């Protein structure tokens, strides 16, 4: 019986010591909501400025959308950083999406015209996949409500 006790204590100690450093940031409802809001904003931006979309390309129009977006992504990133454990996985997910949005703004300003329909269709599929992974990862976290 004494041997069993010692074995259990050793197993529990090993699990605790090896596990603590690897534990991850827990589920956060606001971070989850931020992902879905940013996705809606990003997709609307691409749709609006695609050939035949709701908006005509102009530098002013792009700057307005991109500046407003920049603030949204910055807020989401500051929030994610404030909630992250040492693993930094929340901030990393937001940073990835922020960089994508910035790249799309830069791409639009470089092209100086609406996005082509073919590019947009391919691009939107990838964008939605990226946000989908970010949301899915939030849902795998510890303490996610059932």
């Amino acid at each position, binding site marked *: 019986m004494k041997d069993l006790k010692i074995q*259990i204590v050793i197993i529990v100690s090993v*699990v605790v010591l090896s596990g603590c450093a690897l534990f*991850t940031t827990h589920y956060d409802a606001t971070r989850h909501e931020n992902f879905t809001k940013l996705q809606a904003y990003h997709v609307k931006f691409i749709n609006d400025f695609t050939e035949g979309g709701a908006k005509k390309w102009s530098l002013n129009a792009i700057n307005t959308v991109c500046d407003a977006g920049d603030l949204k992504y910055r807020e989401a990133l500051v929030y994610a950083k404030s909630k992250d454990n040492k*693993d930094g*996985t929340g901030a990393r997910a937001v940073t990835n999406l922020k960089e994508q949005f910035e790249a799309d703004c830069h791409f639009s300003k470089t092209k100086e015209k609406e996005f082509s329909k073919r590019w947009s269709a*391919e691009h939107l599929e*990838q964008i939605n996949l*990226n946000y989908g992974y970010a949301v*899915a990862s939030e849902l795998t*976290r510890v303490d996610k409500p059932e």
Partner: protein
Amino acid sequence: MSDISEVLKETGDEALDFIKASFKELLLESKNDSKTVIKETGRKIEKWLLMRANDGLDDDELESLLNTRRRVVRQFLNTQEIASRARLEKISIGLIDIVANKFIGAIF
């Protein structure tokens, strides 16, 4: 062009042909991989190259799509890390809780 092999056919330029051959090998490897993300990356790259060859995309658009895919793969890797860490925490904390709350006193 309807086939990737037409895009990748030898040109006689040794350096370019070497790049094409290396790419062809990696592309085949990705398409035969069991992991969906790898397989899908190969499938997409093949599709976009064909679109570029048929003037469905320009160089900037192709480059933009490749960088977008790079970010998707990075997000996927972050997702894998989160899932793996969460699993570790759930199992180890679960074990500790069972021993601390149920075993001690009940078994010994």
